């Protein structure tokens, strides 16, 4: 591969209103939870009024802790969960009225666990050809051809088509899952922790494959991960999520060079690069983890924040735009919010 092929991932700017391939507008999702048979009902707000846009060809990294709502957001994008309020626009059209199957041709998922994402009772051919059969694309021979083609693209030989998932290694399984996601040539692929269940040596192969596929087919990724080194390696833009809100969004270089939100900073501090001269960093976060059913008042991050001050525990933080089109949601920057208005 020549150097020119390996297009370095430059940062992507924010997405203008009309160019978004996918846009979330003030999307919220809450669940009603009841403890026990006669317990009182409580509301868990997994996603709180989130705005997010994806432009063609970019890789948006979505990072945050487990339970922050990133997987719920992915399910909303895939049309698997309906938002409680707000709109999802795909190619400018609202998702709400659209046919579920039409959406499936445009957005496909890749999951975390390749052991759970493939039906153990089906052959690789059955698994990869299912989307074609559901959508009535092609006939027998042409589907056969398409499946062989896509398996070849993801680096699997023709002889795995008759294999069952339990005859394959973890890496091979994840390749089958990728082939299933790509067989209908979608525009957007939602990758939910696609490598975190894999061994280190296999992880790099899958990451390489994902970048190669993006270049070759002009795919757009929403890349959900807790591994910030991987996000920095692949993403063009990064959104940081905390308890249902996106608290900071910026181009990848900007975010990693000048993290603004204290939570982003803590996340970056927690990345353990393989450098034997360094010790374990101090993130300065307390041990308290907030209960998503009963989130803290004001800024949801304030109980753990090393920089909290007067307004944090009772006032909701302002959304402050940053100069390159990103934003941060934090009281520390509200002076600038006032100045820019």
């Amino acid at each position, binding site marked *: 591969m020549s150097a020119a092929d390996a297009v370095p991932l430059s940062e992507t700017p924010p997405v203008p209103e009309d160019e978004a391939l996918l846009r979330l507008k003030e999307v919220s999702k809450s669940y009603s939870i009841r403890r026990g048979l006669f317990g009182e009902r409580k509301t868990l707000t997994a996603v709180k009024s989130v705005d997010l846009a994806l432009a063609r060809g970019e890789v948006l990294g979505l990072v945050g802790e487990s339970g922050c709502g990133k997987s719920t957001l992915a399910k909303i994008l*895939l*049309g*698997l969960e309906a938002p409680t309020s707000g709109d999802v626009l795909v190619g400018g059209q609202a998702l709400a009225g659209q046919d*579920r*199957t039409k*959406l*499936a*041709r445009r*957005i*496909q*998922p890749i*999951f*975390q*666990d390749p052991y*759970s*994402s*493939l*039906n*153990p*009772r*089906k052959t690789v051919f059955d*698994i990869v050809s*299912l*989307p074609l059969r*559901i*959508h009535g694309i092609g006939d027998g021979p042409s589907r056969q051809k398409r499946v062989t083609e896509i398996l070849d693209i993801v680096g699997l*030989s023709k*002889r*795995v088509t008759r*294999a*069952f998932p*339990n*005859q*394959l*290694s973890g890496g*091979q399984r994840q390749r089958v*899952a990728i082939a*299933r996601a790509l067989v209908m040539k979608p525009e957007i692929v939602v990758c939910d922790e696609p490598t975190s269940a894999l061994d280190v040596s296999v992880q790099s192969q899958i990451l390489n494959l994902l970048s190669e596929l993006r270049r070759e087919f002009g795919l757009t990724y929403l890349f959900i991960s807790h591994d910030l080194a991987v996000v920095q390696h692949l993403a063009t833009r990064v959104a940081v999520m905390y308890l249902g809100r996106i608290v900071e969004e910026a181009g990848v270089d900007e975010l990693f060079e000048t993290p603004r939100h204290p939570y982003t900073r803590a996340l970056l501090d927690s990345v353990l690069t393989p450098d034997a001269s360094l010790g374990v960093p101090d993130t300065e976060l307390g041990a308290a983890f907030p209960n998503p059913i009963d989130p803290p008042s004001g800024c949801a991050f304030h109980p753990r924040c090393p920089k909290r001050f007067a307004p944090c525990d009772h006032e909701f933080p302002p959304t402050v735009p940053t100069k390159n089109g990103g934003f941060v949601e934090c009281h520390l920057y509200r002076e600038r919010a006032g100045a820019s208005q």
Partner: protein
Amino acid sequence: MSAATDAKDLSSDTTGVTADPPLGPGRMAALRGRIFGHAGFMIGAGVLLLIVLLALFAPLLAPHDPYAQNLMMRMKPPVFLGGTWEHPLGTDLLGRDFLSRLLYGARVSLLIGIVAALISGVIGTTMGVLAGYFDGRVDAVVTFLINCRLAMPVVLVALAIVAVFGGSLTVVVTVLGLLLWDRFAVVMRASTRQIRSREYVTAARAIGCSVPRIVLTEIMPNLFNNLIVVATLEMAHAILLEAALSFLGLGVQPPTPSWGLMVSEGKQMLLFNPWMITIPGIALFALVLAINLLGDGLRDVTAPENRN
């Protein structure tokens, strides 16, 4: 670089290490290995197969008509207790050939076991899968029905119904089929819930599969192992219940040859001719044990923890 190529050539004949990722052993081959290595499964399957063959070919194998009475030849002992080869297992109170009745009785027991398990299987699986796939109200209703069913004493309810409608093969089979679905429902509900959370089900939804398609092609095939295991257990259960009902005189009605009935008929002769109760008892015991061994074996052979 050529050295590296040499090593690749050499590797093929050593440890089974190959650079090209090999496929694991075939699913069928692995399954075969586990089946033949499981003694309980093999014994259960062998005995059950034998009984099924005997039942199927009863008209060819039976030396006499099982209904033909011969009052001159009542209570002849089996051959090993001094009887004649004319009646290898002797004759009963009405002079009917015991071996012939035993062979035809196997048909009744197997028929009741299979049909009752089939009826209850359809009812229980439908309820269990629906409850497991759809949360909320459907689940609440099914759970309530299961609890109601579990609160009923099976034998008493069966006795009451048979007493009202009269005992016959059809009534007994229907009653048992309508009463024994609870275990199917409980097991299928739990398994469906587990499978529903698998990512391949989510993937199927993301592809745009309809709910019936997901249930039939993604979930049902993965329930099959559990289903077979429960079905064998319920079959044994139904056979024993039929025997109990017949013993109490409320099951299959004479002169139909049923093992339960044969035990019942033999009970009056317990002190003088103990073989009349022992022979059908042993047959019943062997059949139920075989089915249970087969069921346990199936569970071991197909259990997920045994799979890679």
